[in-house]
């Protein structure tokens, strides 16, 4: 291979080589027309390019589009979630539910509100409730009726029972 061929082959290009001057380009063209071995080299480059162009277009996996769109939608919803609603979204995802972010946000707010009320009640109010006075007696006879009795009459009855007991005790002592 003579020096000219070596230079031409080094600079052979399918894609315009910006490093070459117009004169060099013209010179190489003339050489290429006359020299068979350089022509062969050039044709092989053309063939390589043709091989690349003939590679088949690749079909993506059929589920790629759906999976990608689903992931984008999920990202969109995740973005719409308030930070405090994230645990809820996680639980809903586990349950295979995917409500809109606003719904999850509202549910979270509601939950936290109820939790606050519950905790406040637990902290500031006594939860041991006194036994209500008016609780009806469960063993009450079905025919029995609860009636209002004046307080004075109850006191009188209690006093009467008291004196009766005392007199009984007195009589047993005497015996």
């Amino acid at each position: 291979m003579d020096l000219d061929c070596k230079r031409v082959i080094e600079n052979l290009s399918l894609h315009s080589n910006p490093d070459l001057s117009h004169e060099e380009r013209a010179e190489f063209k003339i050489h290429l027309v006359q020299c068979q071995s350089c022509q062969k080299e050039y044709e092989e480059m053309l063939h390589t390019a043709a091989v690349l162009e003939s590679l088949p277009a690749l079909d993506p996996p059929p589920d790629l589009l759906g999976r990608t769109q689903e992931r984008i939608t999920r990202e969109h919803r995740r973005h719409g979630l308030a930070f405090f609603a994230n645990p809820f979204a996680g639980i809903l995802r586990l349950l295979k539910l995917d409500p809109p972010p606003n719904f999850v946000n509202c549910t979270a707010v509601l939950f936290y509100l109820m939790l606050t009320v519950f905790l406040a009640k637990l902290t500031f109010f006594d939860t041991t409730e006194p036994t209500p006075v008016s609780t009806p007696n469960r063993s009450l006879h079905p025919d029995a009726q609860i009636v209002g009795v004046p307080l004075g009459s109850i006191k009188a009855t209690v006093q009467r029972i008291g004196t009766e007991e005392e007199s009984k005790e007195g009589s047993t002592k005497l015996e």
Partner: protein
Amino acid sequence: MIPDEVYVQKTIEGDVESFNELVQRHHTRIYGLAYRMLSNPEDAADATQEAFLEAYKSIKSFQFQSKFSTWLYRVAINTCQQYIRKSDSRARTLSAYTRSVEENDAQYDSDCPDRILVKSESDRMVQEAISQLPPKQRIVVSLFYMQHLKYHEIAEVLDCPEGTVASRLNTAIKTLKSKLQNPHHL
């Protein structure tokens, strides 16, 4: 057809379905690019998803000064380069590619199995030769020969002069030529 940029604007305004329309339009070519860069169908599919997700997250950085596809290619190339850096795809390349070619061929009509076998074998060799190019050359080869972008478009995607694109292509062609002539060097 409604231009991509209209969908981009709607996406920025919060309409996720507009972005999914863009995914529909561009996923095949982004997958093609990722495949040629990563030489592995699984990685290519993952990288495609990642690229769209990244594009969605950073959609507000799209300046409307270039075409959306140019910008998307740039995002996808970055994603693929991260994959090349971190993944062990080279080791998985050959077996995965062979498998996918065989799967693809099984779908074609089986009238002339010999021709298909020869073609897929040569495709496999070409893809393997491409996968051995330095990443920068792999990108220009893929964008020029498979995605059919013009010099100035590739230059815009890669943010480099057109001369650089041409010289990378020339170097890549010469390397591929010698690799394909001496397949045992693959």
